[in-house]
């Protein structure tokens, strides 16, 4: 028997199936979209079946059903949300994709809430039961979504604040906020009577303060050094000569996997560059690298002065212009006691041009020959 509640799910099943068929015929039969629509149809059919089987979980007799239908529908905000969603969706198409996405979210969320609330409010003549039914259906969805939204707002607000204030002020703010949370936690534990409204008020004040500060700092923008560093775009123009950028990461390679099982280690100590091979403790004067193979070379700077390792890998001819240009790869500028990794993959033998070289700019006469057989 098709009950009142199951009609909705059967309707969704029919629509999703039609949409899936049209999608497969008109767009792509193998695309993930068809799978999604098929899954939706299956899920809706399952829910419809369950709803029919349980006879809407509510009105069991015609008399009860009539009594339930006579209940006045409670006031709801969801039609307004759906209307706002439609407006945002249309407005977003013309203006901003974010508005469009938010419109879809509002439309879907408002629509689901509206449909379920309307269904639950007429489930029986008992309004308490109806309210519980609504909760049973929507709370598993509402609570995680609400938690995710709250955590997201807190994270975004906090990150805006931390990106706006100076590094040292950031540390102070972090200490104060975490201390406040700790103190409030202690108070809640030690004074059980304080629970309830007082805790709610405290949390509300904290949330308003955090969100307010987040909005203000978000409008104000990031601190000057972050803006300048972003404008430098250090990684798009890796310079192997003197460091041109003011802001660059001096500690970029801390991945253990890169630092183990390396081909060679180049160490700068007391102004001298020395190469050692993994598995050998004695220094070597030349390094041999198999061609067309990813290998890691470790660069360790033990001097007080900053250095970088540069691999000079011959020349190549630029296809369009015929101009010959140097082939170089280098590490970041590396400060004292820091380690960087240079990943090399050299497709061409050094047979024609003579050995390639490892050099450390600023250290004269410290070249290490690199052979690629």
């Amino acid at each position, binding site marked *: 028997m098709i009950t009142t509640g199951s009609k909705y799910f059967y309707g969704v099943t029919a629509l999703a199936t039609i949409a899936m068929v049209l999608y497969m015929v008109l767009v792509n039969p193998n695309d993930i979209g068809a799978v999604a629509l098929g899954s939706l149809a299956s899920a809706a059919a399952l829910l419809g079946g369950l709803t029919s089987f349980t006879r809407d979980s509510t009105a069991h007799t015609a008399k009860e059903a009539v009594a339930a239908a006579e209940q006045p529908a409670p006031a709801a905000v969801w039609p307004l949300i759906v209307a706002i969603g439609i407006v945002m969706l249309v407005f977003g198409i013309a203006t901003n994709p974010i508005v469009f996405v938010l419109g879809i979210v509002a439309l879907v969320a408002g629509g689901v809430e509206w449909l379920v609330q309307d269904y639950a409010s007429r489930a029986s003549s008992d309004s308490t039961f109806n309210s519980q039914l609504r909760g049973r259906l929507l709370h598993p969805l509402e609570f995680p979504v609400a938690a995710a939204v709250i955590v997201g707002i807190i994270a975004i607000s906090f990150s805006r604040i931390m990106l706006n204030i100076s590094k040292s002020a950031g540390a102070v703010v972090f200490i104060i906020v975490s201390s406040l949370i700790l103190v409030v936690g202690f108070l809640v534990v030690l004074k059980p009577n304080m629970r309830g409204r007082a805790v709610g008020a405290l949390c509300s004040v904290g949330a308003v303060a955090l969100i307010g500060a987040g909005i203000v700092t978000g409008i104000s923008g990031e601190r000057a050094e972050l803006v300048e560093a972003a404008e430098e775009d250090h990684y798009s123009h890796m310079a192997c000569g003197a460091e041109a950028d003011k802001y660059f990461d001096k500690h970029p390679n801390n991945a253990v996997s890169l630092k*183990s*099982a*390396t*081909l060679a280690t180049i160490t700068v100590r007391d102004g001298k560059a020395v190469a050692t*091979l*993994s*598995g*050998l*403790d004695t220094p*070597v*004067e*030349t*390094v*041999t690298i*198999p*061609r*067309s*193979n*990813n*290998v*890691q070379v470790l660069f360790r700077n033990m001097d007080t002065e900053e250095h970088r390792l540069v691999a000079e890998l011959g020349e190549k001819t630029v296809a369009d212009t015929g101009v010959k240009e140097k082939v170089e790869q280098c590490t970041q500028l590396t400060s004292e006691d820091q380690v960087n990794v240079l990943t090399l993959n050299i*497709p*061409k*033998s050094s*047979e*024609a041009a003579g050995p390639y070289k490892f050099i450390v700019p600023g250290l004269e006469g410290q070249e290490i*020959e690199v*052979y690629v*057989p």
Partner: protein
Amino acid sequence: MSRHAMSARNAHRVRALAITKLVGASIFLAGCAKDAPQDVFQPKGENAADINNLQYMVFGIAGVVGVIMTVLFVVTMTKFRDKGQPIPEQSHGKPALEITLTIIPALILSVVGVFTFRGVFDLAETKDTELVINVTGQQWWWEYDYPVQGDWGIDKPIITSGQLVMPAGTKVLIRETSRDVIHSYWIPALNGKRDAVPGRIHTLRLHADNPGIYAGQCTEFCGLSHGNMRMEAVALSKEDFATWVTNQQAAYKEPEKDSLAEQGEAVFLNQCVRCHQVNGLKKADGTAAIAAPDENVYAGAAPNLSKFMSRNTFAGATWDLLKKDCRGNVWDAKSEEFGAKYLEGVSADCLNEVDLRRWLRNAPAMKPMYADPTKLEPTDGKYRGMPYLALSESDIDKLVAYLLTLK
């Protein structure tokens, strides 16, 4: 049951027992095979001997435990089998017995563990290395390159493939990596196996007591021709190794003018140099002919064929460059004569022309490789292994003549 039926049943039992004995004896006797170059119980160097000593001890202990457990199992099964007797009195555990049965295996494993850990650390030792060789695995062959090492007269890196040449009585450290997938390097007579992993350098000690050839096999499934990815370690006396090094570093010798080999050099420059490097080979304009396997082969490298005929094998050590009798002459040589015979390389009389010509005619037909152009989409049209080159018989004649000069 009738007498006839009982007789048939007994005959069936006797036959089953005879078959079981035959199979068991065959398996047992297989362990006595003499011509088993990859036998893990025949160490030919100190590292493999360390492993062998450990495995004898472990197998000995495991054998004794196995026999005791089997006897107990059989006795229990026969003595206490269901004969209709009443179920004996049941007791819940015997702490003394259980503690004893826990302590005894723990003690046995502790003894095994002590020797195993010591062996593992001994085999990982690299401080006493005397010679370093880089080994790179690729579908489906091994490349060996010898970094500059003045003590051994290696003033310029040497590169070869198929056969790893090393001095006997020397602590050799190989540094392994791979260009494509994980391979595993294993010369059972010289040490255990070690994986060659892309992007990583793994070390493995090799040591051969005496000159000779020691066979091995890739032991990590690596694709279509994994079974054809072999290797051979050739141990030479230190004097012979020095001779080999000198020869490998010798300058390229151009083929004689107006010879078939000279025409073969032109064919090589036209066809083979796209992937195969021969150090010292020059193009017609006098510039160095540099191979570009990175543009044609998925893994970015192909065997360097400099001094090709100083090796005994080709195509990932799968086929012999020597005829059968000539090969036997080298492989079966006495230790003191081995080096001189190996260093002779491959002469025209000893060349296994049949297999070499077959290879040049249609390599994918001999060794399964991804040579079908319709199946190269995942590799951007680049081959894995040597493709079919459609060489004419005339070109093959010329190439064989040319390759014979690479010595």
